[in-house]
C-alpha cells in the first residue's frame, strides 16, 4: 500500500515535530491555506491539553521565594497554592511515569544498537494490544505500553520466546527482558485454571534456584500481558518457565511446567 503523502501537516507542526525543512515549507504554505489555518486553530487546544495531562506535583517552597525575588517589585506574603495536608495523589502514577521518561533519549542514543528489537517490540505490542482489547481495560493497556516502551528502549533488552509443554502444547508466550527495567510478558492459549490454582512465572539463572517473577492470571481466552518489575541485581536469565501452583504462589516451583523458553540470541 502506498503511504499517503501528508502535505498539510498541521498536527506535526503543532507538536513541533517537523524537520526544519518541513517546518519552513509548512510556514510558507500556511498563509495561503484557509483549511490549514482552521485546522491549526482547532487543534491548538489539544497541544495545551497535553501540557496539562501530566501528573501534578509541587516544587519546593523555596522556588516561590527565588522566583518572586526577581520580580519587578517586592511582593506580598506567601500564599499557599494548595491546601495543606493534601495527599500526594501523583504517587501511584510515579512508577509508570518513571518508566517512560528518557525513552526518547535512549531512542536516539541506542538507535544503532536496538533497531532489530524495535521491530520485535512493535510485534509484541500489537499482540498485547489485541489481547487487551478483549479485556476492555484501556488504562491497563496504557500502563503496559509505558512499561513496554521502557523495556523496548533499554540498552540490554532481550527477547525470550516460550513454548507450550506437554500440559499445554498450544500455549505461547514472549518476554521482553531488561535487567534494569523489568519484563513484559505476553501469553496466549494457556488452559483455564482450576480453582485454587495460579500460573507462576520463574526466572532461571545460571546460579541458584529459580526466582519467582510473579503470578499470571490469564483471561478467559488464556491470554494476557503482565509487566513484572525485576530486581536489578539478579543474573541474566538462562531460561523462563511458567508452572501451575497453589493460589498465592510458592517460593520455589512445585507444579507442572506449562511454558519454557530460553533467550533468543540478538
Amino acid at each position, binding site marked *: 500500500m502506498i503511504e499517503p503523502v501528508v502535505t498539510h501537516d498541521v498536527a506535526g507542526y503543532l507538536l513541533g515535530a517537523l524537520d526544519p525543512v518541513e517546518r519552513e515549507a509548512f510556514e510558507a504554505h500556511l498563509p495561503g491555506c484557509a483549511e490549514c489555518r482552521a485546522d491549526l486553530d482547532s487543534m491548538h487546544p489539544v497541544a495545551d491539553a497535553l501540557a496539562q495531562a501530566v501528573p501534578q506535583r509541587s516544587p519546593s517552597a523555596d522556588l516561590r521565594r527565588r522566583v518572586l525575588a526577581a520580580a519587578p517589585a517586592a511582593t506580598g506574603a506567601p500564599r499557599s497554592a494548595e491546601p495543606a495536608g493534601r495527599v500526594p495523589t501523583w504517587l501511584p502514577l510515579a512508577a509508570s511515569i518513571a518508566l517512560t521518561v*528518557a525513552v526518547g533519549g535512549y531512542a536516539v542514543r541506542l538507535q544503532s544498537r536496538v533497531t532489530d528489537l524495535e521491530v520485535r517490540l512493535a510485534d509484541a505490542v500489537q499482540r498485547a494490544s489485541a489481547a487487551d482489547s478483549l479485556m476492555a481495560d484501556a488504562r491497563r493497556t496504557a500502563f503496559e505500553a509505558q512499561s513496554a516502551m521502557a523495556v523496548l528502549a533499554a540498552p540490554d533488552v532481550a527477547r525470550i520466546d516460550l513454548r507450550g509443554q506437554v500440559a499445554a502444547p498450544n500455549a505461547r508466550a514472549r518476554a521482553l527482558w531488561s535487567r534494569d527495567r523489568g519484563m513484559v510478558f505476553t501469553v496466549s492459549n494457556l488452559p483455564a485454571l482450576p480453582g485454587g490454582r495460579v500460573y507462576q512465572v520463574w526466572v532461571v539463572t545460571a546460579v541458584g534456584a529459580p526466582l519467582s517473577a510473579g503470578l499470571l492470571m490469564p483471561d478467559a481466552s488464556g491470554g494476557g500481558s503482565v509487566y513484572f518489575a525485576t530486581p536489578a541485581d539478579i543474573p541474566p536469565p538462562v531460561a523462563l518457565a511458567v508452572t501451575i501452583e497453589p493460589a498465592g504462589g510458592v517460593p520455589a516451583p512445585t507444579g507442572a511446567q506449562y511454558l519454557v523458553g530460553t533467550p533468543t540470541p540478538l
Partner: protein
Amino acid sequence: MWLVAAIAAFRPDAPESQERDRDALRRLAAGDGAGAAELYDRHHRLLYSLALRILSDEGEAEDVVQDVFLQVWRQASRYDPARGAVGAWLRVMARTRALDRLRARRSRPEGRALDDEHAAANVVSQDRDASAVLASAEQAARVRDALEGLPMLQRLAIELAYYEGLSQSQIAAHLEEPLGTVKTRIRTAMSTLRDALRETGA
C-alpha cells in the same frame, strides 16, 4: 463514548481566570509585585509538573519554572492578549525550555540511569487498581484518560513527539516505520483528541 466522557471536564483556562491573568500581568507591568505572586501561585504547579514530566529531574524542572517566570517578569509589558491565554503561553515556554534541556542532555555522552526505586514493586496488571492512578488534578487526569484511550501506537507517537521532543522522522527511525505511517498516526490521534475537546465545548 467513554473517551468523550473522559475528556468532558477539561477546560483549558476558564474565561474569568484568563481575565485575572491578564489583569495580573498588567499590574506586574505597572510595578505591582502582587501581580507576580498571583501569576506564580496560579500557574507554577502546572509548569513544574510539565517540566518534571519531560526532564524527570526535580532540580532541572525548578530551573525551568524559574526561567519561565523570569522571562515573564521581563516581558510583562510586551504581552499581547491576541496571542491567547497567559496560561497557555507559559506552558509553551515551559515545554520549549524543558525540551531544550533534554536535548542538551542527550547530546552528552552519558545518559542518566532511571531510578530503580520507582520500579521496586511487582505490578501484576490484572490486580492493579486503575482508579488510584486517576486521583490527581481532575481535569488533567481526564485529559490523560483521553490520551491513554488512544490506540497504543498512536499514543506512543504523540508522547515521543510532545514529551520527548522527537521529530516525526526521528520517531519513524526509532520505530523503523515509514514516515508517512507515523504522520498519519499522529494526525489521527490529534484529531481524535481535538474532537473530544470539541465535545467538551458543546
